Structure formats: C-alpha cells, structure tokens
C-alpha cells in the first residue's frame, strides 16, 4: 500500500469504527488512484486532499460520536464475556454430567445469535477504542469470532445427534471433536464474512 493511504488508514484506526473507516478509506482510495493516474506525486496529493491527520480530524469532528476513548466499550466487552461464559458453562456442565438439558436448541440458538449480535456490535459498529498496537489483534478477531461460532454449532450438533450413541466415559473425545468441526466451519464463516464486509464497504458512501 502507498504511504499516503497507509498513513491515512493508521490515523483512521485511532478514532473511527471499522465500518466508518472502511467507507472513508474506500472513497479516499478512489480519489488517490485518480490522482496517481494523472501523474500527481504523493506530495501534490497530500496538498490537494489534505494530510491524513487533518482529514481524520475533520471527519471525526464531523461525526462527533467517536472519541479516542469510549467508556461504554468496557460494558460491551463485559457483556460479551458474560454471554461467552454462559455458553461455555452450559457446554462444560453437559460434558461432566452427561445431562443435555441445557444444550437444547431453544437455549443454544438464541444464545449463539446473542453472541453474534454482541460481537458484531462490538467489532463492526462501535469499536471506537482502538490504538495502533491493537490493530493487529482486531484483524484476528473476526477469525476468533468465527471459531467460537463454529465450535458452538458443532457442540450443539454432537450433543443433539451423538449424545445417546456415544458412551459417557469417552466424553473427553467429544471435547476434542468440536475443535475439528470448529476449525473447518471457522474458515468457511471467516471467508464469507470477509466477502460480506467488502460488499458493505462499496455500498456505503461516507
């Protein structure tokens, strides 16, 4: 990536959510390529479009919602942790006791939906509390999220259809199997998500 676009992306990561950053980047990427096509240098482009820091300041001032630190992010992270903890405790208790009472679809599916909604909200709409060295972690999070979703679906599948077939004393094997399912389904969900996010980026204007 060219230095101007790289700097702009870095600055945008500091104070805008992923969605807004993708939208602004898509527009500036377009302007940048048009200028390059005309033979303008990086300096001329920076003079005409403005420095990355100045653009981000102007855009953030205009949006006014996002600051460098959003205290609500802590509450959101806490909520997501609670949801995840509840889901894993269900899984763990069903493995230990052999009871599958809590692992029925009436509880698990809404929980999974809640988890997806919570993490999506956290990652794609309002993740305003981003500092430079967290960017790499952020890029990995969609994969982790897909992994969790994949694992939960696998756990449900095994419990639903194999619980009565498999003897309880080999339940430790059951604990490993979801990871294999999860890994495969994670890749699938991850690539679908990647494509979907790209489409969103081209659809929005600002």
């Amino acid at each position: 990536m060219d230095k101007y676009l790289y700097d702009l992306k870095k600055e945008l990561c500091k104070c805008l959510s992923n969605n807004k950053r993708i939208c602004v980047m898509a527009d500036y990427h377009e302007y940048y390529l048009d200028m390059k096509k005309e033979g303008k240098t990086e300096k001329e482009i920076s003079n005409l479009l403005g420095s990355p820091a100045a653009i981000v300041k102007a855009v953030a001032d205009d949006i006014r919602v996002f600051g460098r630190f959003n205290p609500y992010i802590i509450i959101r992270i806490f909520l997501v942790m609670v949801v995840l903890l509840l889901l894993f405790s269900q899984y763990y208790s069903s493995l230990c006791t052999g009871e599958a009472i809590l692992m029925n679809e009436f509880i698990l599916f809404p929980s999974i939906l809640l988890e997806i909604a919570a993490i999506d909200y956290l990652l794609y709409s309002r993740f305003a509390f981003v500092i430079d060295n967290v960017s790499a972690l952020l890029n990995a999070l969609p994969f982790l999220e897909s992994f969790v979703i994949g694992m939960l679906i696998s756990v449900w599948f095994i419990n639903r259809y194999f619980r009565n077939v498999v003897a309880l004393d080999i339940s430790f094997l059951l604990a490993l199997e979801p990871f294999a399912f999860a890994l495969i389904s994670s890749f699938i969900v991850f690539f679908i998500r990647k494509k979907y996010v790209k489409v969103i980026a081209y659809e929005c204007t600002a």
Partner: protein
Amino acid sequence: MNAQLKKGLVELCILSMINKHKEMYGYEIIEKVEQGFSNTPEATVYLALKRLYEKKLIDCVLKSSQYGPPRKYYHLLSAGKQELEAMVGEWKELTEIVNKFITED
C-alpha cells in the same frame, strides 16, 4: 476567504456542478472546487458530499473502473434540484443585499 464562509458555499457549488454535468465522480468534484476556492480546508469537499448524500439531495452509482475499485458517480435527486433552486435564489438575494451595502455612498 473565510473558512466558514467557504464551507457553506461549497455545498451550493457542488450541487450546481453536478446539475450542469449530470454526473460527476468524487475526484472530479474535489478538483473543480479546489480550482475555484484555493486552499480549501481538509476534507471539506468530502464532508460536503457526505452531507448532501445523507440529506438525500444526491445519490451515487458505482461504475467499474480499469484503475482499481469501482468509482462512485454522483447525480442530483429531485430533492437536490429543488434545494439547488432555493439555494441559488437565496444566494442571489444575499448578493443583492450585500452589493447594496458595498456600493452605497
């Protein structure tokens, strides 16, 4: 020129430019505004475009480009045409008033 004054006028200029050309892409608009008003504050044109889009005065269509991602081509919506007429009317009225004061002996 005063930055605040410039900001307000950029929207009027963008609307009338798009109206004349029927369809324009982002960089074309930025370049033309920059030619008219030199040293426009950073992101002014971009944010003005965004505001006009959010107010549903303009819309955009993605058209493929051989140089990279698809380009957004902006065109005026009917609400935009009405807004432009109103803005032009206000502008003419305003310049008449100001001219009177300037030229008054």
